[in-house]
Structure formats: C-alpha cells, structure tokens
C-alpha cells in the first residue's frame, strides 16, 4: 500500500460512523435492486420454462357446443400450431366436512395420454385411468384448502345426477396458477373454487357432449398473427355459441401472475434510484467537507508534484470505497433476499420447477449503478479539489461571509435569542446544503407515506367493494338462464332474508375501433344488494334504458356518457345492438357494464330471464341454505362475500405488511443517515465556534441547541415537503395501479401522516442523541489549537 492509500484508509477509519451510515443507504438501494431484479428475472424465467414444458396454450375460447369435427377446421386456420378441444363445466361440489358448497371447474383430459396442451403436473397420486369415470385429479390449492387427500371422495351434482368422485391425484397446471373462476370473482378463493380434471368420455356422457366440445385452446405457429387467428376462430365458432376467443395475455391466471411479476419490475427502478440519489447527496456533503478540511494537504501534494489525476483519483477512491462497501453488502443481502423472495413467490404460485438465477447482469448492474452514484456524488467536490491552485490552497480559507439575514432585514432579530440567531444565519448562509438535507429527509418521509399508501388504499378498496358496492352475503349463479319466476323459489330458500336477481350476458362492447370482451349485467333498478356508486360513494341511479359503465371500462373504450356503444352479444341469437352510455360508476375492482334487467331482457329479445341472484342471508340459517344449495342442479356457482373478502385480504395483506416493514426500515436508515451526517458535518465545521462559545460560558445544552436546533428546523421543514412528495408518489402509484383487475384510489389517511411523522422523529431523535454525546466530548483545548 502506498502512502496515499494509507492516508485514504485512515481518513476512512476516522469517519467510520458517518461512512457506515452512507454505506447502509447504498446497500439498501443495491439490495432492493438486486433483490427485485433477480427475483423478477428468476420468476419470469421460471414461468416461461413452466409454460413451455407444460405446453400452455396461447389462444383460448369457450363456446356452447360444437362437433369434434370442427377441430380440423380450426387446425387449418393459418398460424395455428396445435389445437386441443375440451369439455369444461362448472359444477357445485359437496366437500366432506364443509358446510358451504364449493364450485368445481371440471376439465376434460384424454384418457390415454397427457393432453397436448395445458398439461398437468401431478404432485401426488397418478393420472386417471381409462374407463374409470369416477376418477378425478384435484388442483393442489383446492386440495390443500379443503384438506383433501388421495382416495377422498367429493360429491357433485353432475347434470342433475348426484355422483361421487374419487381423488386419484393432486395436480397443478400452468392454466390455473391462480385458480380464479372469472366473471365477478377476480381473486382466488381456494376453499370454494377448484379445478377437477376428469376423463373426457365420462364428462362427455354426463353433459351430453359426446363427440362434441365446448372449449378449445391452441398454440400459434412461429410468426403467426395472434389477432388474425382470434378473428378467424371467432368466425368459425360464431355458429356454435362462441363466447369470443382471447389471447394468453388476457387469460385470467396468467394476467394476475404477470401483474405480480411486473410489480417486482417496478421495484427495480424507483426505490434503488431514490436510495442512490440520497447516497450520492450524502457522499457529496461528506466529501466536500473532507476536501475543505484537507485544502492544505491537497496543496502539499500538489507542491510535491502529485498530478491532478492522482489527487482526483485519491478522493474518488474515497467515495468508491464507501460505495463499494455498501454495494457489496447490498449485493449479498439482495441475493439472499432475492432468493427468498423468489422462493416465496414460486411457492405461492406453486411452480413445479424453481430456478433462482441472479446472472452477472444483476451483480454488474448493481456495481455499475453504485459507481455511477459515487461519481455523481463525488465529482463536484473532487473537481474542486483538483482545480484548487496550489499556492492559493496554502493560504487559509477566507472566513465565511455573513450578510444580514431575512430576519434582520425584516427587523425580527429581537424575537430570537443569540443562539436562535446563530441557527438562522447558518441556515441562510448555506442554502444549497440545507435544501439538499431537507430533500433527503423529505424523500424518507415520502417513502414512508408511499408505503402506508398501499395499505390504506387497499383497505379503502376493500371497504368500497365489499361494503358499499357488494352488499349481499351470497351470490348464486345458475348453469343456464332461468325464467323470472325462479326468483320466487330463490326467495323461499331457507335463510334468505332478501334476494335480488340479475341477468348476465357475455358480450363484446365496441366503440369505433376500441373493443372489450366483457359482459352486460342486468340488475334491478332499485337494487340494494349491489349498489352502483360514484367517487364519493353516492348511489348512482340506473336509468331504465342505456348502459352504465365502470369508469375504467369507459376509458378503455374511449367513450363518455352520451356516446353510443355497439354491443355484440355472444349468447343465444347473438344480437348486435346499439346502446347509449348513460352513466359511469367508480368501482375499484373489475370492469362492468350495467343495465336495468328489463332493458337487458328486451335487448336480448327474451322474456323475463335471470342468470342468478344476490342473497342476504340470516346467519343462523346459513348452514341450511348451504346444504340445500348443494342439492340444486341448476346452481352452477356459489360465492360468499365474506370468502372473497378473506381471500383478498389474505393475498394482499401479507405482502403489504412485509412491504411496509421493509419501507419503514429503509426510511429510518435514510433519515438517520441524513440527519446524522449533516449534524456531524456541522459539528466538524463549527467545532471551533462551539468550543469558543463553551469557553465564553455557554452550557453544553445551549451549544447542543445551536447545533441540533439547526437539524430540527431542517427536519420540520422537510416533513411537510415529504408529505407533498409522498402524495405525489402515491398519485403516481395510483396512476400505475389503474388496471383492469383493480384500481388503487388516491387515499392517504391521517394515520399515515402521523405514522410517518413518528418514524422520522424517532430516527431523528436517535441521531441527535448520538451527536449530543459526541458534543459532550468536545475537547475545548484541542479544538482551539487546530489552525483553520
């Protein structure tokens, strides 16, 4: 080690406290970068591998019924790779020891060999045997949620007949990573919805589908146009009650999985950037101070012939050392957390394979961005150091210039004690450094607000969706449209206190060249169990004619109230009609198009017809209702609001708590680091002044007040700015989370502000405490002896 490096090493050691604080900020940034990027890469890779190995289809379509011969015509569509026809039906299941009925989606499997597309991975047990119509494979999540084991039996009403199904295997499939039923339920409820795979022949016999199919999936050949294939497929299936084909991108499970993975991608940029920006700022502050105190040392090095490059590199190495230390720590931590996170996700998503691969890109990326941060942070001061002419550097720095401050110009100085005036003048003299400190703390505040925002927004979303919009206890869906008089039977079911019927129709909505494949929901004009609400949660009236859209759907279709939509119904006679948009609702989950139920019946040119009902149930009689529902063949699906709420909370809640915890730690580190560093530097710059004050008879408390008072003012200024900034971040988040599945409203609660204030205050007080102790150890004589 040469002497200059030895100096570097000792300079680093002397300020270790400050430097570790900065390195921690760097390591937080790098850790979050490495963690999220490696998890993102790994999950994407794992997902793709899973999809490929299990031949996940690329286009999906449901229809009413088509002869198997149609499959050849589908195969002939240019661009189609492989075609797999299936039978898919939802049935009500009686799960042993469960009161509530569950919905099972039965999917046909070829009995001889594994399916060509959407293959299953058998975790336990075996594949179904040919000719055994009572054997089923059950999805793992459903089995787990209901404690189902091999050889257990499930009761099911299959086409009006009570039947026992024997579980021979537990399986998973790339098609149902998230087991979501679709329609109104967008979140998995593994206890009440699951996938059952069954031999095709048996399923065909039960549902009158011999030599026919009602679901087709296919892959595309290389270079094929997805949209062309979908259009051609739709045309072929039109005659057979096709419900509209859709690409893998819109496949619900895949859509949710991609959303989850995408969230990680978002984390790879925003948070690390914030941290590195703060680290760069702290490095700048510390290095400028170091260079200011080493003016003469720099001059000496120059006098003895050290080149500018050598001196510049010396100080750059100083920042590099801190940053690389932080980056190494962060990378190790990030790899560890990344592996954990990937594992967590892979387990959560039940991937049968698991690959954690943090390639060199991640590590080099981390090092590159940290070096970039170091250079950004260090460059200004390093440049100042090397451009200092040696002769000038030998002369002591001129004393800082003090001008009358605003306070004096406004004649307010008598309001402040001398100590107060010292504080104010110091703040005014170094506006840039003060503003940067404020910005650093404000960012920490903003990070906390953003973290809390997620929690609050989701709570609000849940409240709106499950208390204001959906107010029913149970929703039942019939396997096919029923005459309106069925409602009286429904009302008479045990435990039903109130019931409202609905009609839902699969349809394509079109406006100009925009279109969306969703449905129309007809509800009663005076509906109470499903309320249409606007932004302020006021009830929106449902006009007797026209359609009311979820605002997000209106956005997608580029329509406003008054525009006329083209509705292409995908059921029965498939009428195509024009309907005016008459209103918008602010629902936060899913996309809906509502009509008055009679208007919808009229549009369908049908008599009064219903698809299902919302029920309010007497809790004491609920079990009776459930038992009864299990026996009614006409009921194809059944959901309870509480179950949906629980499932949503379970999925989002855990993630939120972990996120908030991490963000609190991150923000505390930032706050501590910024406050500690700026106070340390103020102490170093002004130790002479403070020592002189002590000699003049000021008490320790008084000089602590001068030093820490300055920091306190910075923090107090930073907090409201951070609130604003956090509000901005939250607004940005709310904007990015404006998705089809759900939308996060811009809600920041008072408790979020209070919580943030508390965390920042605690972090500040701790750093203030440490500084206070160092201040008490101020060596008066030594300080006065140093020449400056």
């Amino acid at each position, binding site marked *: 080690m040469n*002497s200059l490096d030895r100096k570097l090493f000792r300079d680093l050691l002397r300020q270790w406290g400050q430097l570790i604080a900065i390195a921690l900020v760097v390591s937080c940034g790098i850790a979050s970068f490495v963690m999220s990027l490696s998890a993102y890469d790994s999950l994407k890779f794992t997902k793709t591998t899973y999809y490929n190995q299990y031949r996940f289809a690329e286009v999906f379509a449901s229809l009413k019924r088509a002869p198997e011969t149609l499959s050849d015509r589908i195969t002939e569509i240019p661009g189609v790779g492989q075609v797999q026809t299936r039978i898919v039906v939802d049935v009500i299941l009686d799960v042993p020891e469960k009161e509530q009925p569950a919905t099972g989606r039965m999917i046909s499997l070829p009995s001889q060999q594994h399916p060509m597309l959407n293959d299953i991975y058998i975790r336990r047990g075996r594949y179904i045997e040919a000719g055994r119509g009572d054997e089923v494979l059950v999805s793992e999540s459903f089995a787990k949620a209901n404690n189902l084991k091999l050889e257990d039996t499930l009761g099911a009403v299959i086409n009006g007949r009570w039947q026992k199904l024997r579980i021979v295997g537990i399986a998973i499939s790339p098609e149902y990573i998230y087991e979501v039923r679709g329609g109104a339920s967008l979140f998995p409820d593994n206890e009440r919805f699951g996938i059952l795979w069954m031999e095709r022949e048996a399923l065909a016999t039960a549902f009158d589908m011999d030599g026919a199919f009602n679901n087709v999936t296919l892959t595309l050949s290389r270079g094929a146009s997805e949209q062309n294939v979908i259009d051609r497929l739709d045309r072929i299936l039109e005659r057979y009650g096709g419900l509209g084909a859709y690409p893998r991108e819109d496949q619900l499970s895949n859509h949710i999985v991609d959303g989850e993975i995408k969230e990680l991608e978002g984390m790879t940029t925003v948070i690390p950037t914030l941290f590195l920006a703060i680290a760069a700022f702290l490095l700048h502050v510390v290095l400028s101070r170091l260079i200011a105190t080493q003016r*003469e040392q720099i001059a000496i090095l120059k006098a003895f012939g050290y080149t500018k490059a050598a001196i510049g590199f010396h100080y750059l190495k100083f920042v590099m050392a801190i940053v690389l230390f932080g980056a190494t720590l962060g990378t190790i931590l990030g790899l560890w957390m990344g592996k954990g996170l990937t594992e967590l996700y892979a387990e959560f998503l039940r991937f049968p394979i698991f690959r954690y691969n943090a390639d060199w890109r991640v590590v080099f990326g981390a090092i590159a961005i940290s070096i970039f941060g170091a250079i950004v942070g260090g460059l200004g001061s390093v440049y100042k150091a090397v451009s200092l002419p040696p002769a000038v550097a030998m002369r002591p720095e001129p004393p800082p210039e003090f001008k009358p401050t605003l306070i004096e110009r406004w004649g307010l100085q008598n309001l402040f004690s001398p100590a107060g005036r010292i504080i104010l003048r110091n703040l005014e003299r170094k506006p840039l450094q003060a503003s940067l400190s404020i910005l650093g703390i404000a960012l920490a505040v903003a990070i906390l607000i953003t973290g809390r925002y997620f929690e609050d927004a989701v709570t609000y979303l849940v409240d709106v969706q499950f208390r204001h919009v959906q107010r029913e206890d149970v929703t039942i869906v019939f396997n096919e449209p029923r005459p309106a008089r069925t409602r009286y039977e429904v009302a008479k079911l045990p435990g039903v206190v109130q019931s409202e019927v609905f009609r839902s129709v699969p349809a394509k909505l079109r406006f100009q060249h925009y279109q969306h494949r969703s449905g129309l929901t007809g509800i009663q004009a005076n509906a109470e169990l499903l309320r249409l609400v606007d932004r302020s949660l006021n009830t929106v009236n449902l006009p007797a004619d026209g359609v009311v859209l979820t605002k997000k759907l209106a956005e997608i279709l580029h329509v406003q109230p008054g525009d006329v939509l083209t509705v292409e119904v995908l059921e029965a006679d498939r009428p195509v009609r024009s309907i005016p948009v008459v209103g918008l609702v602010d629902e936060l989950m899913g996309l809906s198009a509502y009509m008055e139920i009679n208007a919808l019946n009229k549009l369908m040119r049908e008599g009064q017809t219903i698809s299902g009902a919302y029920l309010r149930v007497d809790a004491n009689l609920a079990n009776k209702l459930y038992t009864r529902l299990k026996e009614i063949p006409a009921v194809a699906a059944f959901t309870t609001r509480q179950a949906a709420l629980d499932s949503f909370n379970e999925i989002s809640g855990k993630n939120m708590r972990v996120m908030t915890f991490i963000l609190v730690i991150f923000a505390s580190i930032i706050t501590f680091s910024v406050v500690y560093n700026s106070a340390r530097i103020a102490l170093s710059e002004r130790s002479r002044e403070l020592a002189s004050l002590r000699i003049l008879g000021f008490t320790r408390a008084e000089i602590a007040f001068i030093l820490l008072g300055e920091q306190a003012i910075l923090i107090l200024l930073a907090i409201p700015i951070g609130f604003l900034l956090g509000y901005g971040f939250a607004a940005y988040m709310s904007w990015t989370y404006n998705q089809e599945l759900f939308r996060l409203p811009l809600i920041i609660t008072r408790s979020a502000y209070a919580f943030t204030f508390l965390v920042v205050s605690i972090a500040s007080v701790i750093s203030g405490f440490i500084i206070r102790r160092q201040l008490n150890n101020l060596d008066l004589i030594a300080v006065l002896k140093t020449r400056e």
Partner: protein
Amino acid sequence: MKGIETQQQTVFRMEEVSKTYQMGEVKVRALKSINLELEEGELIVLLGPSGSGKSTLLNILGGLDVPTEGRVWFKGRNLTKASDADLTRFRRECVGFVFQFYNLIPSLTARENVALVTEIAVHPMRPREALGLVGLDERLDHFPAQLSGGEQQRVAIARAIAKRPQVLLCDEPTGALDFQTGKRVLEAIELVNKELGTTTAIITHNAGIAAMADKVITMRSGEITDIQRNLVKVKPSQLEW
C-alpha cells in the same frame, strides 16, 4: 557537482516578473518587475516585511504559481511557458518545499509523510535516510500530532529533501518556532545545502538569519530593494536574533 566554487551556473533567472492579484475591484501588485538570478548551490535568504511579496516570489520559483508578466527560467527551461502538467513534473523532479506550518499529512507517520514524496520521485533517498539527516531516526513511526513543532518542521525538511531536489524552497521555516528549535531547523537546512549542494532559498522576516546566507535579498512592496553577498557565513548555531 563539478567545480561549483569556480564557475557557478545560474539555476533561476527572472526577467521583469510581475504578479498582480485581483481582489474584487482592487488590484494588488504583489511583485513589480523583478529581475533576479540565483546560482547553483547558493544559500539565499529573502528578507522583508510581511506582505512584501516574498512568498509570491518563492511560489513562482517553485512552479506553484505563475507570474502575470515576465519570464522565469530554470536551467534553460522556460517556466512561464510551461503547462500545468509540465509544472507538476518540474515540482516533482526538481523542487522541495518547506512551509511555515509544516503541513504534514496528519494521518500519516513521519516515515509515511516522507514516503509520500519518495514514492513518486526518480532517485530518492530512503525515508529513514532522509529523516536521519535531520536527526529524527528515533521518531520514524510517530504521527505529526505526537511530534513537537520543531520535530514536525524537520520531518517537513526531510520530506522536502528526500527526493534529492535541485532546489529547496523554505517559506518562513522558523516562523512558528522558538529560538532554540528554530536554530536546529536551520542547521538541518544548512546541512542539506552543504552536503547535497542543493540550491536553497529561505524566506524570513528575521534579519538575524541573514548571516548564514551566501546571498541576502531584501524586498519591500513587491520590489527587490537590496541584494548583498556575505563574505563570511555564520553557522546557524551561532546566529543571534
């Protein structure tokens, strides 16, 4: 060192050198048309009151600063035309500096302070040897804070001479020291001048020191008012002030 006594060679030549500092609106003329020649192996003392331009002159000689007007030669090398990089090389290869406040690097030991210079020099002494010359072989591994002012200044001298410079420039080397300590420092400088034949310039505002010089240059308000040659040099140990 061939025939130093008989035919002395000119080391530095200054022609019409002026230096003006711009201080806000006012111009400070630190040097006014200086003409000067320094010979090889000479020990020069620069006398003059504070603010008379001594440091400015020395800094220009040492390549730390450049004149506003005029020309400076070092052994036929035109320093006024030199680039920043050339001046850096000039300082690295040819010049040793000693300053009033020692200016040691506080985080390096005596030996390391010297090594700082020997590491980048062409034919340096070993740090221990240089410290031996100034009588500090016992204090090699002490940090500046553990040394007295005189000791620190001797480390600074060791650091300046360790590279065997052709010129040694000392700006008030005894300014911060008491009488006895100052003398020991001057002895060290003289020793270097004599043993190594290094052309040496010492700034002082202390006229008593002038007696040890070959040549005494007196300055006032940026001008050289007098140049004297001492016929008899006094040993530093016998100086009085």
